[in-house]
């Protein structure tokens, strides 16, 4: 049993090391990838524009639930007007970046991993190497960059729609005063809170994109292997996101 445990530990360390080395390999390819920016744009479209509908719908419902729950709770203390600041802080600092990252891992991360895994399984990556095209340079780096660009924008859209969702429930349905909803939000939310959200979504973008391309690129070249890579992408991304969330929150704590 201890032997098995040690093996698992060593495997995890090896995986982490390999991922960091893969990150450096990607970073080395970034300057040249910027010269072929059309490839990056295509990936921003794949990772960002195609995730727009799910992000907007989720943001709307998360905001609406926040409005409903927040209203119920704040009503007990007779301070329904604080709903604006409660919803805005919750969305901008926590729910926006985290839920976006989880949805991103499920929607775009799995697509990336299975696409790269299938490329590996059907020897497309080997074929590129045969033609002296570096597959990391040509395939992986644009996908990585596309994910990084898309994530903060998706998180910002999520938060904005969420705030309007909370406003819809709070102000339109529950009758909270619209003026105090917005003015309490403005006086309570600091620019640092917005910055924290942007920093978080940037970090999650890097982590989720790296995990997706790493798992896909190193997938076993079988149908089962591609499936496993997809699953691992979601699991690892979710855990890493929540862990990073704690770290960055602690960093921003005054």
């Amino acid at each position, binding site marked *: 049993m201890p032997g098995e445990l040690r093996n698992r530990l060593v495997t995890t360390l090896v995986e982490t090391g390999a991922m960091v080395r893969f990150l450096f390999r990607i970073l080395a390819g970034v300057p040249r990838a910027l010269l072929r920016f059309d490839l990056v*744009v*295509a990936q*921003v*479209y794949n990772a*960002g*524009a*195609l995730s*727009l509908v799910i992000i907007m719908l989720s943001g709307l419902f998360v905001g609406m639930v926040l409005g409903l729950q927040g209203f119920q709770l704040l009503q007990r203390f007779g*301070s329904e007007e604080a709903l604006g600041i409660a919803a*805005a802080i919750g969305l*901008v600092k926590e729910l926006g970046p985290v839920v976006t990252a989880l949805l991103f891992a499920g929607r775009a991360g799995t697509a990336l991993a299975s696409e790269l895994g299938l490329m590996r399984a059907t020897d497309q990556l080997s074929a590129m190497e045969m033609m002296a095209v570096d597959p990391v340079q040509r395939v992986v780096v644009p996908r990585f960059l596309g994910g990084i660009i*898309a994530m*903060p*924008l*998706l998180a*910002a*859209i999520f*938060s*904005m729609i969420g*705030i309007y969702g909370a406003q819809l429930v709070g102000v339109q349905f529950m009758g909270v005063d619209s003026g105090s909803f*917005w003015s309490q*939000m*403005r*006086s309570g*939310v*600091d*620019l640092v*809170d*917005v910055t924290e*959200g*942007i920093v978080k979504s940037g970090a999650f973008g890097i982590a989720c994109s790296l995990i997706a391309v790493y798992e896909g690129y190193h997938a076993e070249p079988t149908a089962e292997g591609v499936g496993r890579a997809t699953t691992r992408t979601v699991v690892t991304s979710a855990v890493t996101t929540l862990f990073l969330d704690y770290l960055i929150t602690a960093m921003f704590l005054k």
Partner: protein
Amino acid sequence: MRNSHTLNLGTGLFVLLGFAALFFLTTQTTSRGLSFGSKPHYDVTAKFDNVGDLKVGSPVSMAGVEIGRVSDISFDSKDYKAVVVMRLDSRYNQIPSDSDASIYTQGLLGGKFVGLTAGGGETYLKDKDHIDFTQSAFVLENLIGQFLANFGKTAAGAGTDTAATPAAAPAATPAKEKTK
């Protein structure tokens, strides 16, 4: 060609929407948005004995209406007072210069804000003017402390009064003897 067109259109739309959302979050949900437009304003200072937890960006209101914000708080080491700079909207330029400024609390435990009460003077506050009449923040701990001290005195009052007089009398007599 058509494929590339829709791709660019979709990406452009997405990026535009994303930056619009970022702009919304930075300007509409925070208090910084107001300073972007840089409305005409004028600065007025006031010195307080204690500002409590008044912060830069706290509202300045008159009759309950926000007329400006606190733009700076510093400490004057000459007379040990807090110097609060208030940035008032130029629309409200007819505030008598003998108005007084007090620090109030929003709700029972809310944040602090500066409330101005109009005086009866003929001259109005201008840029870089100084408000002389101020009242400090109401610090809950001090009030509780005072209350407890008073409460302790009155409760023990009956006992200490009688005990204090004989003790004070011998203490006073040697002093008298010395002066003789």
